């Protein structure tokens, strides 16, 4: 019973796990390329929350010297790391969306099933062209 209580007390990690699984599920199951990127975003956000939870010390304040000797400080390093990871995540999403725009221009669709069919068709056409040339 007490172990269940301690799990519930760390509810922020439960949120992390739920977000992580939701994100991964969207990436795997969704057909739409933009929604896949949304899933990726959620997946990455869950890791951000994980890091931020790691650095938080209960009752801790921002790491600025207060002059009081027994002040409890939160660990700033994971938070700073996550600032970097957020920037990386933004860059990944931007590049992903740019690619989706190009895919839409080239194939006129961003649905995975249709794109797979078009891709296979491209392969067949290539082979046929060769057969005609032969």
């Amino acid at each position: 019973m007490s172990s269940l209580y301690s799990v519930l007390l760390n509810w922020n990690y439960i949120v992390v796990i739920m977000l992580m699984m939701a994100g991964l599920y969207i990436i795997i199951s969704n057909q739409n390329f933009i929604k896949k990127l949304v899933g990726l975003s959620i997946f990455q956000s869950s890791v951000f929350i994980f890091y931020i939870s790691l650095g938080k010390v209960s009752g801790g304040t921002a790491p600025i010297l207060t002059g009081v000797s027994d002040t409890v400080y939160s660990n700033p390093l994971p938070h700073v790391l996550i600032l970097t990871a957020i920037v990386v995540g933004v860059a990944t999403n931007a590049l992903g969306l740019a690619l989706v725009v190009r895919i839409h221009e080239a194939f006129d669709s961003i649905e995975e099933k249709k794109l797979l069919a078009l891709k296979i068709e491209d392969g067949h056409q290539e082979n046929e062209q060769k057969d005609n040339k032969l």
Partner: protein
Amino acid sequence: MLILNNIPALLVAIPLLASAVVSVLPSARIAWGVAFVTTLCCLYMAFELTEIVSASLTLSYAFGGWEPPWGIAFVVDGANVHLVLLVAFISVIATVYALSTLKHEIAVEDLPKAYAVWLLTIASLFGLSMTGDAFNLFVFLEISALSSITLIALGAGQDRRALLAAYNYLIIGAIGATFYVIGVGYLYAATGTLNLLDIIKRLNEIGTNQAAVTGLAFMLAGIMVKAGVFPVHIWLPAAYSFAPSAVSSLLSAIATKVAIYYLARILFGIFIDTTHLIDLFLLFVLMPVSVIAIFYGTIAAIYQIDIKRLFALSSIAQIGYITFAFSINTHSGISAGFIHLINHALIKGALFMAVGIFAIGIGQRATMNSLRGVGRQMPITFTGFVIAGLALIGVPLTAGFISKLYLFKAIFETGNGIYVAVIAVSSALSVIYLWKIFEVMWLQEPLQPLKIEKESVVACVSLWLLVFTIITFGIYSAGVSSYGMNAANALIGVR
């Protein structure tokens, strides 16, 4: 002195700054010139670095004067000094090759920007091969992934399927990188540090820890995606086969190799294996997976018609050889892995270059049908291609033979005969797909008269530079094999 003292930082900083400059240059030729001079500078610095490191064994460079473990450190030791040299060498040759091929595959107005991304990729690969900080590694991992995705997507000018390949790589690569970050988070929670050397020290003090083990598992999973190890390789064949040929040869030669080096570092360098978890992972996960990779890659390549895809699939098999050598888990096994890492980078780089020259010569994708009789029309390229192909099989007097020799030596030391059969049978199978290409290109008549553009001198020179290196390493193998020894010494101690 200022340069010599700061080589690790400059190796990343110079291509990074040059890439910003190149992106605003108006002319493709000037952009190429800047890129070429930059890579030459990097090669010079990499040579200087090998001399410094061979004198002092380990070089730790603290950024901004912040001493590790507080600041970010670049560490160069026996395990990665020649990897840095390999990255520098391949990037010079691939840049030379790009001069004559990229303009056929990418719109001229995009070329300066393409060279900017090209330099960004090279900068991040230098960073990846030197960094000693777990989180800094993630940043370089993402820079290299995003820039190589952009380069792969540039293949869309020729074939729109390049966009899908790039998108798949982006999604799979981002999941892999995020897994790696989760792992780093767990290790940080367990040890309170991000410096790899410091992590070893702290883990030694606290002993086996559930959080550290979980973190290690996440890190391994993430890095294996980037390295193209078998079950998580799916992004690799499409990405390499639709990218422009210069990009294919650059990425297949060094991008996955850097990730494999880091895989070895995590496996053998970080974790103090008190409960034999790594031993179990190597024996029951990495070894079977490598054997499957070797056979899957080789057999899939036999049935492949498209030549670039064929060599991408054979890359999976070759990566399988490297991870197989690691999974033997002995001193000679690890050194065999590192020797094959270098040799395969040279061989696969040369093969992709040759295929690119053929494809530009015939003006369409290189396949088993379109390449009929091309070998006789382009004898210089074809000869280089055949030598690189023989090296892939492991014929004596080529670098591939040295790899197989050391691999066999490592296997014989374990005394387990069945592994000998694995390597021998898979090498024999790889003869099939290479012979198929040789036969089509040399013995078969083209079904219609070929209109072949003359092969460009620059592309041939870069191909032959690699081929000469392959032959040289096949005859004078002392340099490569001593690198393998040094790498194993640096990772698991002198034996």
